[in-house]
Every structure is written in structure tokens, then in C-alpha cells.
């Protein structure tokens, strides 16, 4: 593609515009509520300490996987809202399998990951099959499957759980010491370590990129997403694509719980983090389904989450303001892209019109000269 400075400027304009608008709107909300606007932003924007940086990277890796899972569906207009249920069911089953310690060390980690991906894919597959055989919208079926997964996990957890000593929390048995994923001391001066699973998350991002832009399957997937009728006309089996895309999406969703399971929690309990699937939707939207974009979106979201923690103590403002900011960012990003796109199209049309006019004038001059 030819390098065009105007194109680059337009591409960058949208996210910048979106962030500025989001900050402005959130500031208005804060001011209207009578909260100290400047103090809030100062707290959020202060440079994070090494410990916080590690936390940001860790939670970003989780959000990234969730965003990837959603994005795969998005690329062919499939809306997998069910990532939430898929990752929780997958993490639970994987935790139970891992705790058995059937295989030694690293092999057990591999087994755990494979099991998680299979369970996630299976749960997403239910929605896929309902869609291709019965025409049930995946939006509704995955919402239902989320609720069913919640109840199912609660039931199975009670069956398979061991009492955690000294608390009301119930959880699966902890996974053996030798099948935990070691952390990486990436940030100097931090007392905590980055999840080893970050490497897997990055690999998943690369695999996503290669799959979509370098394989026939990826081409078919994107083609189906752009125009289903054109895809059918060119001989793509859309139903098959729906099932495969949904299975891959679910498989990646299965990975979402793994950094937590293998890197910090070591078991699945009542306190296992939930709601990551919905955050993944926002992150995927923010990153425009682009692997690098999703990473930026994930980092932004986890930065906001981490930096808002002290808000209540330091400034006396509820850290829920960050959720408002996140929601507004999602909205302003899509709006900004649309506005910029319309602006670009209008510019293009004007340019073409001008050139046509010039050409006509030149033609008429030539005629009159002849």
C-alpha cells in the first residue's frame, strides 16, 4: 500500500479524537457531580509504580485473550457474547483436571491448557450448532449459555470442591506445585512477577494475525464477514465457517482463565474473577479487531482499572467513574471512526470532483484550441 500522510493522519485522528472526547465527557460528569476533576485525573495519570506495572501487564494479558476470542467472531460478524460463560466453565474443568496431576510437570500444564480450550470450544459449539441448524441468533443463545454456565459451575463446584481452610470460600483442589506456571521478573524493582502466560497470550496474538491474513481460512473468514452473499457465491460453505469460527473463538476463550489459574490462583473457587468476557468485548471493539489494537485496548483498560484503585482513598471519589470512562471510550471510538470515515469519504469525493472538473476544462480548452 502506498504511503499517504493524509491516510495516516486520518487513521490516528480517530483514536485521539475518541480519547479526548471521553476525557471531556467524564470530566463533565465529575464536575456535574461536584467531584474534584483535576485531582481525579492526576491520580489516574500519575506514573505507576513497578508493582502496579506488573499488575497492569498481568490483567492486560487476560483482557487480551478475551478480546482476541471476541474479535475472531467479530471478523465474520459473529457476536460471541458467551466468552464469559465459556472461560469460566473452561477454567473450572481445567482446574479439576490439573489438580489430579495425571501427568508430570510441564506436560500437566499442556494438558490443562488443552482441556480448557476444548471445553471453551465445546460450550461455544452449542451456540454454533443452534445457529447453523436451527437459525438461533448467537447473541441470544450465548447470553442464555452464560447464565446456564454460571449455574452449572456453581453446581459442579459444590460437588467437586474442597473447603479452603479458614474461609467460607469453596474451591477445587489446588494444582500440584510442579504444574504451576513460573512468573517472569520482567519489571526491575517490582516485588511481584509477570505471569508466565503472557508469552502464550502474545503467541496467541501472533497466531491470530497469521491465521487471518496469511491463510485461506482467514481469507474466507474475512470474506464471509464482509459479505455473506458474496462468500456464498464464491463457494464458501458459510455454515461450516460459522461452526469453525465459533469453535476457535470458544477455544481462545478457554485460555482466558489460564493466566489466573496457572499463575496466581492455582484453583477455581467462588472468588475466581468473573466478567472478563464482557470486558473482552469492549477491548476488541477498542482495538478494531486488530491484534496490536486489541493489545493497546487491553493495556488501556487494565491501566485505568489499576490506577483507579486508590481513587476512593486518596480523593474520595468512587472508582466506578472508571467504568463510565471505559464505556464512553468504547462509544466514542466507534463514533470517531465513523465520523473520520465519513470525513475521509467526503474529502475523497471532493477531490475526485475537482479533478473531473479540471479535466473537463482541459478537454474543452483543447477542443477550442483545435
Amino acid at each position: 500500500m502506498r504511503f499517504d500522510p493524509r491516510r495516516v493522519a486520518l487513521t490516528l485522528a480517530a483514536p485521539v479524537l475518541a480519547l479526548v472526547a471521553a476525557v471531556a465527557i467524564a470530566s463533565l460528569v465529575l464536575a456535574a457531580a461536584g467531584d474534584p476533576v483535576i485531582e481525579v485525573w492526576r491520580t489516574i495519570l500519575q506514573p505507576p509504580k513497578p508493582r502496579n506495572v506488573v499488575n497492569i501487564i498481568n490483567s492486560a494479558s487476560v483482557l487480551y485473550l478475551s478480546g482476541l476470542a471476541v474479535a475472531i467472531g467479530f471478523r465474520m460478524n459473529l457476536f460471541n457474547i458467551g466468552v464469559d460463560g465459556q472461560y469460566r466453565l473452561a477454567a473450572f474443568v481445567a482446574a479439576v483436571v490439573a489438580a489430579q496431576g495425571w501427568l508430570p510437570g510441564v506436560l500437566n500444564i499442556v494438558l490443562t491448557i488443552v482441556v480448557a480450550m476444548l471445553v471453551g470450544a465445546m460450550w461455544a459449539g452449542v451456540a454454533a450448532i443452534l445457529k447453523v441448524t436451527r437459525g438461533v441468533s448467537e447473541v441470544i443463545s450465548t447470553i442464555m449459555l452464560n447464565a446456564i454456565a454460571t449455574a452449572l459451575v456453581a453446581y459442579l463446584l459444590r460437588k467437586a470442591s474442597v473447603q479452603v481452610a479458614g474461609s467460607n470460600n469453596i474451591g477445587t483442589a489446588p494444582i500440584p506445585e510442579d504444574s504451576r506456571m513460573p512468573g517472569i521478573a520482567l519489571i526491575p524493582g517490582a516485588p511481584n512477577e509477570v505471569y508466565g502466560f503472557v508469552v502464550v497470550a502474545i503467541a496467541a496474538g501472533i497466531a491470530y494475525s497469521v491465521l487471518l491474513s496469511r491463510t485461506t481460512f482467514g481469507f474466507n473468514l474475512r470474506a464471509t464477514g464482509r459479505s455473506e452473499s458474496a462468500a456464498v457465491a464464491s463457494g464458501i460453505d458459510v455454515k461450516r465457517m460459522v461452526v469453525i469460527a465459533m469453535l476457535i473463538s470458544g477455544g481462545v476463550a478457554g485460555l482466558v482463565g489460564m493466566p489466573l489459574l496457572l499463575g496466581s490462583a492455582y484453583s477455581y473457587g467462588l472468588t475466581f474473577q468473573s466478567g472478563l468476557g464482557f470486558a473482552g468485548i469492549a477491548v476488541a471493539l477498542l482495538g478494531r479487531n486488530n491484534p496490536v489494537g486489541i493489545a493497546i485496548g487491553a493495556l488501556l483498560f487494565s491501566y485505568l482499572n489499576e490506577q483507579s484503585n486508590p481513587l476512593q482513598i486518596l480523593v474520595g471519589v468512587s472508582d466506578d467513574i472508571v467504568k463510565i470512562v471505559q464505556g464512553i471510550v468504547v462509544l466514542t471510538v466507534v463514533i470517531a471512526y465513523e465520523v473520520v470515515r465519513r470525513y475521509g469519504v467526503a474529502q475523497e469525493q471532493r477531490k475526485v470532483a475537482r479533478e473531473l472538473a479540471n479535466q473537463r476544462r482541459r478537454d474543452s480548452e483543447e477542443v477550442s484550441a483545435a
Partner: protein
Amino acid sequence: MSVGTVAAPPSTAPPPPTKRRITLPIALLGIAGLILLVALIRVITGAEDLASSGTLGAAVLLAMPIGMAGLGGLWAERAGVVNIGLEGMMILGTWGAGFFGYQWGPWAGVLGAIAMGAVGGLIHAIATVGFGVDHIVSGVAVNIIGLGAAQYLAALTFTGTPGGGPTQSPPIGDLPVITVPGIASAAADLEAENWFFVPDLASVVRALTAGISLLTVIAIGLVVLTWWVLWRTAFGLRLRSCGESPSAAETLGVNVYRYKYIAVVISGGFAGLGGAFLAIVASSIYRDGQTGGRGYIGLAAMIFGNWRPGGLLMGAGLFGFTDALQLRSGGESVHALLLLVGVGLLGLAVWQLRGSRRLAGLVTAGIAIAFLVWYLTTEEVPQDFSSMTPYVVTLLVLALASQRLRMPAADGLPYRRGQGS
């Protein structure tokens, strides 16, 4: 019409084919058949709470928030805007009910909830109609904003209030409750009798006449009003035309943008009203996380109801009923429900086989037999399974009946003036 379809519970009764309309006598006959079936099940299983007036009363109460959210979805989608942001608008509504309700009384709370929901609707309308953003994307964003805003505002406004805190409001006053004199007590006497069928009928009557919140009556009135406005007025015809073929509407001089804006804002108002039900009628307090995904369920109820008011009321009733069963006596009643679902599905299977849809009929029969076997081999359904009942039932219904569902033709498609295809 075969016996199987008359007796089938609403869960499995497919929406009517467009040619045959459900008239009042048929609907009454269906309801009578349903009560008869429930009476039979009650006698066979001994699950006395299955259709007691207590359960039914709880069912009505639990159905209303879902029904109102669904009605909100109906308005938006009839105008061609998919509204998955109902959950967020409903959450905004619960805060509005709490904030205005505890200061100026429950009716102010209701209005505040509607206003807050409408604000959520306006955000959705600006994004989808004004800027042409993908409807589901905007809905997701509205859900995030609604949740964050309600919790932020709750912490801001309820901290330090008497009986309130960062996550909950002070108590809101009660709304008036209606009991029809004479009928309610007579129904109560009849319900106590140990007969067949009559007590079940009486419990339905009693649930509908004793201790009904005035807001419930208003809400049911709003469902009827919605039907009348959307299907019997010029305004409604224009609004629906925006959901079916906006460019055709445009050529006839309809201001599509304006209708879509109106529809989506009203949609938010209804979702907010659903939130008011949760905060004022169901618990008389605002609490964080009160909605528990009911906005999504409302959307499902609307789809279940084939984008029609009567159907969505039935869907909401189904959710409310299974929810109430699970809350009141848990395992036992849901266990009895297995038999109900099994018999209903068997009826559907017979009907499908008669209509020479061999494969569908066999699949349905297989599922029905699985339910019956489950019923016969167990004593009780675990608590967690009962809480997933409504969702499984919805999935089953969608799987069995989705070919008969027809959404507005231009639902979810972006529209820009002058760019009709």
C-alpha cells in the same frame, strides 16, 4: 387443532402462523387447557406449590421487570434498532427509582426511573441513529456506562444517608396495592379446597386479584397501550415502517430519524420502568447489581414472543413463573416441571409428526423422553439446576420455534437518509 397443541404449555406452543390469528376464545381455551394440565401435574406429582397463588403472585411480580424490558426492546426493534443496552438502561432505572423514590416518594421514583432509562435510550439513539454505530456495539457500551454510572451515582448520593450506603439506597416507600374485594377472598376459600382443577383456577384468580401492586396494573395496561399505538395508529404504522423498510418510509415522507429517536428513547423509558419494579415493588430499595441480567432476559422474552406484545408477555410470564418456582420451593416444584415440559414436548412431537416433519418430530420426542426419564429416575432437581431452568427453556423454545420467528426486516441495519438501497 389437535389436543396436543391445546394442552401444550406456552413454553412449547409455537407462535401462530401468520395466517391464523389467536383470537380471544382460542387464547382462553389455551389458558384453560394449561391450567388443566398443571392441575393434572399437581395431582400426579404432589408438588402443591406448583401453581399456588403464592407462586403465581411471585411469578407476576418477577415477570413484570422482564416484561417491561422486553416491551422496551419491542419499541426499539420495531423501529429497526436492536437494543442490547436494555440491561444498562434498566440499571440506570433502578438508581433513578432509588434516588427520586427515597426523597419524594415511590411515584417520583417511578418517574425518575423512567427518566433515567430514557437517558440511556437517548445515548443509544444518538450513537445508532445519529452516528450510524453498530447497534450491538453501542448497546454493549450503554451497558458498561449504565452499570458504571449507577454505581458511581449510588456511591455519590447514598453514602451517609439514613439506612443507605455506597451500594444501596435508603428504603423507598411502598406503592398502593389493590385487592378486589369479594372475588379475592372467595378465590382464597376455593383454593384451600382439596378438589381437582378448581383450586388451580382459583389460585390464578386469586393471584390476579389479591395484593396486586398498582404499578403491575399500569404495566399491563402499557402492554395493551403499546399494542394499540403500534398496530392501530398512523404513528405506529410509520414507526413500524422504519423497522421494515426505512427507505420506503422515507419516500413516503416519514422522518425516519425522528421516529427512530422517539422509539429508542421510549424503549429506554420502559427498561427504566422495569428497573423501578425491581427497586420499588420487588425490594423497596436500590441495590448494586439488582438487575442480574434481566435486561438481557427481557430481550430474550421479546424474541420468544416473536416481536409482539402478547408473545413477549407470555415469554416474560414463563421466566417469572420458573423464577418464582425456584425461589419458593426450589427442587420439588422444578422436579414437577420436568414432567410438564416432558408432556408438553411429547404433545409437540406428535403434532410435528402429524405435520410430516419427521426429523424435527423425532428429535422433539427424544428430548421429551429424556425429560420424562429424568423425572422418573430422580426425586428432586438440585437447586442450581432449577436456577438455570428459564434459560434452558428459552434455548429449547428458540431451537424449536426459531424458524417461525420473524423479526422486522430492517432490524439492526444502519440507515442514512438519502442512501436507501
